[in-house]
């Protein structure tokens, strides 16, 4: 039973990792924005969910209906008025990457500062769906299961949308080569903006859902940014399926190490796994071959 008790909670933890990484696969993989303010956006969504819950009594799942469109709009504005200019200015992908790192680093401070003014530096936490559910002898929290479920459903849906629809194909074409995409008549700027905004919406999903079970404060964004980056890179940039698999893998490994080896080594093990994957496959689990 120990095996089940490792795999199930591992998958649940991994589901959370995948969930917080989904937005970044779109923002970085497709829109080519290396968004350093990613974690701050996520925490902002968590604060939004907290405010709606404590202020209006609106549950986080209902809050999604509000948070996601708002986040998409804000991210679209950010892209349209700031990032798009940089994308046009950068003469190659390297220059665009550097510019987007710098600008989103500034955005990080703006978002964090706004949260500090509104909420101060202290910790926030509330309880929602903190109900035990026993599956095959392993007890799991419903709120964490919901996060896993969302990761799987949203991740799966985005994956299908990218591979099975016309617009998805266009988006993937941009991810591979924006210049070539432009040549075949794809409106790269508009679609990149859409991908970035959609990624922003997914960040909001992640933020709202993790607020149900994680304690957070205004200064914690960088933790999520880093986790998301690790998952995205490990899965292969721009590959939604890769992010899902990488997230779940990290969760299971972390849980296995905690149960079987030493809880003190969990984070070391996840980083070792990440580095190991990159050493064997330099472009991630599902990455395209290096060009």
């Amino acid at each position, binding site marked *: 039973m120990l095996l089940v008790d490792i795999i199930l909670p591992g998958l649940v933890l991994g589901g959370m990792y995948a969930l917080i990484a989904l937005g970044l696969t779109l923002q970085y993989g497709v829109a080519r924005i290396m968004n350093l303010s990613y974690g701050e956006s996520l925490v902002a969504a968590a604060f939004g969910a907290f405010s709606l819950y404590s202020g209006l009594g609106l549950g986080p799942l209902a809050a999604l209906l509000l948070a996601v469109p708002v986040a998409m709009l804000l991210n679209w504005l950010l892209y349209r008025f700031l990032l798009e200019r940089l994308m046009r200015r950068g003469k190659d992908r390297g220059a665009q990457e550097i510019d987007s790192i710098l600008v989103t680093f500034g955005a990080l401070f703006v978002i964090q500062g706004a949260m500090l003014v509104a909420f101060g*530096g202290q910790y926030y936490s509330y309880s929602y769906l903190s109900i035990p559910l026993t599956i095959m002898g392993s007890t799991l929290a419903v709120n964490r299961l919901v996060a896993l479920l969302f990761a799987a459903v949203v991740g799966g849906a985005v994956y299908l949308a990218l591979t099975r629809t016309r617009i998805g194909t266009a988006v993937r074409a941009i991810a591979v080569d924006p210049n070539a995409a432009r040549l075949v008549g794809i409106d790269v700027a508009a679609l990149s903006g859409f991908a970035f905004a959609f990624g922003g919406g997914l960040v909001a999903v992640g933020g709202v859902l993790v607020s149900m079970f994680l304690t957070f404060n205004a200064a914690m964004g960088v933790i999520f940014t880093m986790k998301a980056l690790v998952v995205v890179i490990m899965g292969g940039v721009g590959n939604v399926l890769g992010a899902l698999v990488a997230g779940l893998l990290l969760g299971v490994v972390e849980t296995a190490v905690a149960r079987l080896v030493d809880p003190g080594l969990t984070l070391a093990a996840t980083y070792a796994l990440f580095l190991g994957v990159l050493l064997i496959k330099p472009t991630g689990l599902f990455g395209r071959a290096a060009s």
Partner: protein
Amino acid sequence: MFSANRRTLLRVTGLAAVATALGSFASAADAQEKIRIGYAISKTGPYAGGAGITTLPNYELWVKDVNAAGGIKLGDKKLPIEVVEYDDRSSSEEAVKAIERLANQDKVDFILPPWSTGLNLAVGPTLNRLGYPHLAVTSVTDKAPELAKRWSNATFWLGTSAQISEGLADLLGKLKSEGKIGANIAMVSIADQFGIELSAAGREAFKKHGFTLTYDKTYPMGAQDLQPLLKDAIASNPDAFVAFSYPPDTIALTEQAQLLKFNPKVFYVGVGTAFPLYKGKFAANSEGVMGIGGWNADSPQLKDYLARHKAATGKEPDRWASSITYASLQVLQQAIEKVGKLDRAAVAAEIRSGTFDTIIGKVKLKDGLLQDVWSVGQWQNGEFYALAPASLPGARAPVVPKAQWQ
């Protein structure tokens, strides 16, 4: 120098109106009108969470209280406090630089300490060299006695790690001898200096009292899921569960314990148990949970403090270091008033040697350390009462076994 010269120059040229306009600029030099107090605190970065609950609200409350009463009495007149504040961004180097700035640029009269052991130790040598009294309240270290010897201007207020662990072990030992709990303890701790010192001291102390550690592991800072750890701790079937954890983990451990229906006779977690957040989140389930700290909630001074804190900052204080932080500021004020002038060396000496009347009762430091500190508290009827050391006035009896989670 600069502003004084400029002022002379301006007067000479007869532009008195401009000089008046620059009045706020010049006020830096007028030490007689105000007492300038500076601090750099973590408003951003990983320490913002701790500083935002324990330290910053108390600085603000204290300044408000003192100024509402007319200021600090210096000789025969009262001088209001003027505050200079910076953000150290949770960085040791920024903290040191901010101290230099407060001392050399702003020429403040006194400096209040940053939050956390690391930052207090980082600014220690600088405050010592500059001769400012250093109230190292939020630093818990076994090196405290040695540091207090090394830095005669510094004082330590939360006890040592050993004191906290021994307080807990004494309490558990007593419960064991009364037959209320068995001899098995599961202990988890966070892998930083705080967790390591406490768990190391705990290991010794528990052994001395005849306990067996059935589970004893650390976990890294930033671990997102503590359920695996908790499951193995539960499997070891302990009578008491002890976690030396940080606030997010304290909350996560409590939540997971409820989900897993883990009901040991003693459930001790913390830092963070003493935070109002804990009671707010777990409500009735916080009942019976033990943690670091605690206070004598029946004391009228503390009741009054609680009310003022709520009124001024909009939230309740934590029940461990908050009241001590505030008390340390009262000590500073009274020391300044006793010395009667802005003589920092004399004030530092007075803090160490004097006896003061504060919200936590009479305070008298010994060798630069506050001796009587609460090590264990417990949520009872919605208040976090202090349990140990039982010898201190106001100590309550523990409620054991803890009620089942609801």
